[in-house]
């Protein structure tokens, strides 16, 4: 780390600070790109999600590197990582933890479940029953786990990266809209292009590389940048555009919720900071729009794209 980023004394973000932050984040994304080849945009978006303090949902076919990316993310930031494979017999207690009766003391003690970690990878979340899914999502929302009336706080930071297979298959419990709403973004990795795939096939084992990867950015630095994200300037003209988008989505039925609007704004701010700007532009909203709105709309990605092309920038 060459420069030490401190929070600006006054509460405005200058372009210089933004550029400096962008430089630092470029280092992070470059490090991640070493592990996952040919997916710079997705990595950038994943970092955006982290900066915006949101949870990430990967929806993709198996074998494209979702787990790898999540692990890489955790490791590059020096965060603790844990993985839970969701199956249909998973019970909420298996995730959150349970109170176990101790014969010696004659009382119950709480054994924390795998959720007590800094980065949690919930693999194939759509395989679990809705009851289990809701337990996890409740923990995500509240940041603590209540067992027998006692709250147990989750560690800070706490990120959930969930994966699911495309929902058109039978044998899954599709996440209901209210739960989908809790994920900031839904990303799809996809297969890499030929050159990157070639490099991957020829090169070293990805997992070995992962094990050797050093910490690219300390967590405290990322936390500081999360605070900077909140200072990125949003002009009234931009809020007009955002609200026009939300209103356009609500023309048919209930469209996007206010939480979606907040999510979109947070993601756009994070993207602006990644681009090195101190203010949010409509292009930022358009860059993250489909990913933030897609899983919240009935019409899916097509509708999100339609909204973006049809809404006029005021």
């Amino acid at each position: 780390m060459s420069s030490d980023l401190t929070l600006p004394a006054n509460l405005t973000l200058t372009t210089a600070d933004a550029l400096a932050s962008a430089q630092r984040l470029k280092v992070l994304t470059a490090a991640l790109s070493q592990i996952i080849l040919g997916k710079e945009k997705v990595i950038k978006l994943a970092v955006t999600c982290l900066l915006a303090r949101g949870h990430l949902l990967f929806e993709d076919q198996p074998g494209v590197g979702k787990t790898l990316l999540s692990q890489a993310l955790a490791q590059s930031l020096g965060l603790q990582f844990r993985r839970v494979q969701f199956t249909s017999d998973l019970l909420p207690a298996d995730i959150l933890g349970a109170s176990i009766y101790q014969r010696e003391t004659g009382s119950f003690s709480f054994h924390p479940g795998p959720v007590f970690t800094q980065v949690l990878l919930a693999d194939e979340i759509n395989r679990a029953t809705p009851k289990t899914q809701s337990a996890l999502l409740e923990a995500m929302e509240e940041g603590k786990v209540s067992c027998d009336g006692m709250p147990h706080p989750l560690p800070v930071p706490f990120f959930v990266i969930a994966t699911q297979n495309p929902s058109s298959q039978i044998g899954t419990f599709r996440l209901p809209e209210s739960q989908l709403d809790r994920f900031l973004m839904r990303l799809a990795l996809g297969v890499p292009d030929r050159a990157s795939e070639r490099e991957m096939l020829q090169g070293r084992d990805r997992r070995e590389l992962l094990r050797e990867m050093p910490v690219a950015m300390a967590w405290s630095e990322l936390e500081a940048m999360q605070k900077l994200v909140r200072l990125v300037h949003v002009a009234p003209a931009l809020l007009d555009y955002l609200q026009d988008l939300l209103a356009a989505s609500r023309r048919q039925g209930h469209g996007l919720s206010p939480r979606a609007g907040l999510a979109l704004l947070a993601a756009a701010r994070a993207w602006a900071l990644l681009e090195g700007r101190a203010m949010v532009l409509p292009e930022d909203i358009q860059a993250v729009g489909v990913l933030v709105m897609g899983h919240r709309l009935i019409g899916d990605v097509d509708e999100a794209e339609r909204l973006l092309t049809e809404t006029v920038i005021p």
Partner: protein
Amino acid sequence: MNVDKQRDAETSEWCSRWRQFRQSSIRVRFNFHTLSLIGIVAAMAYTGAVQNNGAAYLLCFLTGTIAAMSWIRAWENLRGLEVVAGRLSAEKAGLESKLPLEIRATGSQAVWGVEVLSAGSQKWSFIEQIENGQKLVVSVALPAAEIGVEPSIRVRLRSGYPLGLFSAERDVIIAQTRKSHPQAEGVLPPPAADLALAGTRLESGQSAGQPGREGDDFAGVREWQAGDSLRHVDWRAVARGRPLLVKQWASETGAAVTLDWSKVDLEPSARASQMARWIESCESSSTPYALRLPENEIAVNLGPLHAQRCLDALLEVAGVNQAELQEVQKSKRLPPGHEHSSFLPRGLLLALCGMLMLVALPVMDITPIAGLFVLFACIACRLILDKRLPNGVPIAVLGVGLGMVHFLQPTGLFSMEGGIATLVILLGAKLLESRTPHDFQVLTMIAWFLCLCGLLSEQTLSRSLWTLLTFFGIAVCMVRFRRGRLELLPPLRLTGTMLLQALPVALVLFFVFPRGAFEALSQFGTQRTRKTGVSEEMEPGQVSKLAQSSEPAFRVEFLLSDPPPNVNRYWRCVVLWDGKGLSWRRGPDWPIKRRVRLPKAGDLKQIITMEPHGRQWLPSLDVPVLARDDGRMILPDMSDMLVSVEPVNSLKRIEVISRLTQDSIELTAAQRAMALELPRSLSPQVMQLAQQFKQAGKTDLKIAQSAVGYFQEQGFQYVLDPGTYQGSGALDEFLFDRKAGFCEHYSAAFATLMRAAGIPARVVIGYMGGQWSPRGGYMIVRQSDAHAWTELWLEGTGWTRVDLTAALAPGRMDLDLRTLLAGEGELERQRNSYFWRGSKALQLWWDGVEYDWFNSVISFNEESQIEWLTWLGLGRWRGQPMLLLCAGVFLFALLTLLFWLRRPARQDDAWARAWRQLCFKLERSGLPARMGHEGPLDYAQRIGKLRPSLAEEMKRLAEIYARARYGSDQTGVGDFERAIKLIR
């Protein structure tokens, strides 16, 4: 090459714009009210032409212009709307649904009074007002549809704004398919599960092969029973102190259902409903299902999207043919709408009734006042009883009213006055049964027509202003009908704006419209106006009755000289030869020989503007030499009286040359006999008196003087109202008993006495005196100056004026009648009071204004038009070119209004305006336009790719704009604008 392409592009753009205009879905249609409007404007023009009535012309032009402008406003009202439809989700057939529409007012004008309805539905929504730039969401009811797909939905916008004279319509076709799915009904049970799911998509876990484990899905726990493997016990629960529980596993339903179209034995629509029911039940029981249709097969799946797909596929098979649907749509009638259904609030009704009363008041000049009472009664009825009256009542009122008119109106039912009275009663009757804006619109059109009728009897400035005000008030009511809200201020403002925009055009048309075009029509004119003035006979009491009114009789302007002194201000009107004591008549018409005299220097030239009196005499200063009326020369006859060819039925302007001294002429024998004729019933007393005079002097002059002396000495009194003198003994009563009379009595008695004494005498009625108006520079002669005097033919001097009144009441010469009769003390008091002087001054001032109004507007005819045009240098233009000019002015005014209404909405943000300018500039130079959703940086990048020379500059400008618009620093617009100008 580029220029040509550009020009081609421009022309093609204009062509496409013109094509768009032609096909544009806005139509402004004529309706019933337009017809009545055309009738009213034609009537106004006719009145103006026939009566040469400038005020009517002005009203006609004003009405025409306002109507034309309202046409443009109606068009623009609907044009400024932007309709965006919300998404319509698929619904069940046979149910009504609602389509949310977002209507935005683009452009600079607000949108008023529009109703939205869709073809076939009976419900409409009414939009009051949308401010410019605002949006409004309206739900349009769509009619119940058959099973099937409608490729588009047709929505109609209708408006009667602003004055209801035209109906504007706009059809908006919303390119959204409306899918009506079959309703789910049917009693057949769903088919059995026949598709075994091959487990291709199931994750085959390790547990699949285990015994006791039937499937992969956790299906809860149950109590442990003997025989269950201990491996399946939930040990965690046991550790927590629960009893032994066994986890249960169920496979997912490994079988799916196939819904087959061909296997159901029902009619197509019933079949579709049945299958919809099955789909519903499968979804609710989470059974995957597949659909098999004659042309389509949908694979097994589950979920709302799958259900949607299946229902859509069903539509294709079971749906009604689309072409049939379109035809059905076209034949549906549209509901009546706002014009025919909504009700008026009470406040508006009150205002309208007030306006109607104001309109009807001036018309009472020419119609019996009973009509007004009927109208008032109807208004009271309507306002007090608010409920619906039975149908017979208005017709009964109309019948009663017509009967009254027939009996009370002297000219009968089928004359102009009768027609107008009928209209007033019709107004009342229609008011009783009016409920909807359509009915009230009819009322207002009738009221506009009555405004015109008010101008038929009087064209003074006050009347014209009254007419204008009532016209304006009615127009405000018309605008108010098109809205539902309760305020009165916006309609006032709108009507005021329209009036202000129409007035200049009306004034220009007033000057420019060729008056001579309709000269031929003026012979058809019948004029019914109030007529006052001296009549052509004199009965005792008539002149005094006339003298009680202080209305102006005529106004005189003196050219080239000062007005004559009071002593000479005798205005000659009628000469009476045939006398019977105190009553005199004109006498038989013998062939009238004109006295031809040439004007000399020293003769007084006057321009007399006279009010109509219905007879054929023309006033002139004693004695007239020559008169000119509208180009015709009129010479006085043997009585020195000016007679016009037609009766004076309208305000008339004549030029008269008069000489103050009388020429001596010879009397013919017939004339002498005529002038000496005595009534047969002359009493001996009077004869004796006459003999007395005759003996007093040798010459006629001496005789006359002795007679005058007699009157003066005998204590005769000059009073305005001496009582009635009737019968054959009237003269005696006057001369010997009462000895009190007015100028008519004196002149008649004196003339009779002189005739009896052998001196030819005749009586002249006219006016004496006149008030000088310093502001106007003219003299007003009023009815109260009416006077009668005697003329004696004396040897050597000819017909000499002998005015007894001058001898008896010399004060009459200097003062007007009223002040004279009021007495000296009153006079002093009046002179000294400011109020009197102030009111007199105000009266004179107002009279001057009216005189100017008459001169400039009412009597503006072809002559004055030619004068004015010559002054402008366009003297050669007459007839055809003038009409073209009129049309040109009219069209120009309409185009100006169109452009004013189409001005773009103000953009308040300076940066946004500048950016828009830049985009427009780039678009004009041939680059593709910026898309609505394109941000500044993306746009700059795209431009940079298409035109590399601009890449650098565009990037810089885009960044500056982005920083200003979306950042926190808003300064520097000027630099930005300057940089834009430099871009090529």
